[in-house]
């Protein structure tokens, strides 16, 4: 593991997302406590922590998916490119076009593969004409590393693909809207090891164009794909830093306990 991390070059990118004093409440439950974090562009940032620690909740704050839950309240500031996304003037719909999301369970729509990918560009009006749309779909499917597998059956239903293919389709669907940030909520938890490897490889490639934030319950996965890692525990952001540092030389005893498997 050490060798793997030593190879990784960590060059500092410009700041993409910065969160200040973020608090999240579910009804009476204080789910996220005072989180401050800066996430860089063209970097893979991993959120790790035991289940229920709030990592997914925080991830969902970044594109305001928590708005769909009635009892959920968010306080504090989250800035993307210097703009507060919880500003009254911000339309979550526009925000989510800029900050795409991939979910834990592959969730292709009950439509054809083509329509799945074309869905985002269509609602956001990204294509000038049919040829343009075809182009966008092909590009997204290539970026999703699934083009070669589906190019002959774009009219087949997306639900007919295997789990790994479905997840890559969902990633392609997310990148088709040309987001700047890609949020991934445990994207490999429902996949087998081979599919997981394919998706991880894809994530590493996506880094060239996007700021990727990935939530994972697997420390090994975080170590494999991310440059930065944030460790959450009981709603607190305990430690945040270079992935290599977090895994080899954590400063907080809680991080160390988690990484060495004493708490889980």
């Amino acid at each position, binding site marked *: 593991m050490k060798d793997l991390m030593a190879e990784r070059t960590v060059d500092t990118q410009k700041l993409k997302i910065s969160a200040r004093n973020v608090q999240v409440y579910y009804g009476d439950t204080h789910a996220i406590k005072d989180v401050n974090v800066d996430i860089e562009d063209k970097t893979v940032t991993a959120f790790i922590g035991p289940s229920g620690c709030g990592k997914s909740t925080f991830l969902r704050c970044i594109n305001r998916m928590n708005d*769909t839950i009635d009892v959920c309240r968010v306080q504090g500031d989250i800035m993307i490119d210097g703009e507060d996304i919880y500003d009254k003037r911000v339309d979550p*719909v526009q925000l989510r*076009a800029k900050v*795409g*999301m991939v979910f834990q369970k592959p969730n292709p*729509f009950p439509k054809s593969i083509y329509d799945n990918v074309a869905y*985002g560009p269509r609602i956001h009006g990204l294509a000038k004409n049919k040829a343009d749309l075809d182009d966008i779909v092909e590009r997204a499917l290539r970026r999703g590393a699934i083009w070669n597998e589906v190019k002959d059956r774009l009219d087949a239903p997306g639900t007919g693909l295997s789990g790994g293919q479905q997840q890559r389709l*969902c990633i392609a669907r997310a990148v088709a809207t040309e987001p700047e940030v890609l*949020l991934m909520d445990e994207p490999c938890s429902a996949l087998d090891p081979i599919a997981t490897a394919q998706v991880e490889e894809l994530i590493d490639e996506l880094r060239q164009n996007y700021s990727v934030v990935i939530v994972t319950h697997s420390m090994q996965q975080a170590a494999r794909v991310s440059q930065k890692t944030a460790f959450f525990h009981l709603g607190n952001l305990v430690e945040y830093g270079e992935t290599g540092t977090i895994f080899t030389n954590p400063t907080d005893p809680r991080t160390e306990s988690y990484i060495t498997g004493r708490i889980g």
Partner: protein
Amino acid sequence: MSELFNGLIGGSAAGLMVIVVLGLSALGFYMARSRAMASGGGDRRNLHSLPNYYGWNAAMLTAVPALGVLVIWLLAQPMMIDSAVFKTIPDSAIAEGSSRGLVMSDVRRLADGLDVIVERGVMDAESAATLDANTTDLRATLAAEGVALGSAVEQPVLDAAQMYRTQSSTGRFWMTVLVSAIALLAFVVSLRLATADFRARNVVEKGILALLILSASIAILTTVGIVLSMLFESINFFRLHSWTDFFFGSTWAPNFRGDSDLSILPLLWGTLYISIIALLVAVPIGLFSAIYLSEYAGPKVRSAAKPLLEILAGIPTIVYGLFALLTVGPALVNIFGRGEQGLLGVEWMSGATSVLTAGLVMGIMLIPFVSSLSDDIINAVPQAMRDGSLGLGATHSETIRQVVIPAALPGIVGAILLAASRAIGETMIVVLGAGAIAKISANPLEAMTTITTRIVSQLTGDTNFASPETLVAFALGLTLFVLTLGLNVIALYIVRKYREQYD
């Protein structure tokens, strides 16, 4: 003939039998229980089962087979006697324009009438059995006792009726003998069984299981009963009336002197036209309500609006019928009729009953039906699907229109088919609101009639099961049954497949 009827008020053979058998069975319970206790030396721990099980075993064994035979006998006897007597009616007794079936119903009514006058002491049993049609004015005698006969009694009919009576009383006698014998035999056997080693609980539980199975099969029996009863009478109808006219004719004009035009097409048209209007009202309103309630409404609005809407489903159809006839119909006449005095100043509608009247009201009735079914179905669409769409930056309505509804479509289609089947089979709204004129017209402001309306009108009042005008109701009923059954089977299949998909 009317054993079951008499039996229920007590005093006749069947009623007495039931009481005797039940009494014997109760006696069996206590005797078997105490016999088992005695054989266990008075200590219940020596018995295989709890003492009550021995009692139940005896009670069950005594009552169930005997009562079973009784019921079967009561069901079978009328049919067997009918067919026996049916054959003996000479062709000469069948008048011009009449039929064997008509004469047979006269025979039954006469036999019943004779029973009545004997029972009331107008005539003693002896003289009733030796009546002569030529010397006694039976019609007048019976009319005095409130039994109306269609025509004067002829000798062959009287003979047949007497045969009917003798066979009935013979049947009753043998029934009494057989049922008592079975009950007694079972009583003795069950008492002998009641010893300590007897596995009473296992036997009783097997018996209970058999009763449970019997109850479950009543559903099947009902369906079989529906199909058979309508099928037989429909076959009788098609013997008297050509099936080509029924299915492909264009006129519905029943005429009780015979020679009627009885075609289903105008009725089917009215039925479908009204149902389509009803669905045009119910589907958009119901579907949008369901979408709002399941996707937008907060828990408070939902918990208030949903039960309120469902009140509409709990209101009896007769209320909607009255609403159509007395409120919606006149309101529509105010708009589309009345010429200069009307709201639109047009004279398009003459009476309160019309396709539109019935369709609108039926639509209101179906709103909660569509909305609660669609609500369930929309809720079954996984949240992940919505998240996927919202996460791509779709608005809520785009998510609903382009992801949720397409995903729920099979289920919604199923719900609409179920609503259509409801609309087609609905009776009271169309009886009161649609009118009675059978015609094929495209004007929704005209009165038209439906299959269910005609079934009601052909089968109420004086019915004569030998005339095509009455029997046609069964052919209509069968068509209606097949139509709605088809819709239901398809709809339920679609809905079930849909649910399995997201389970």
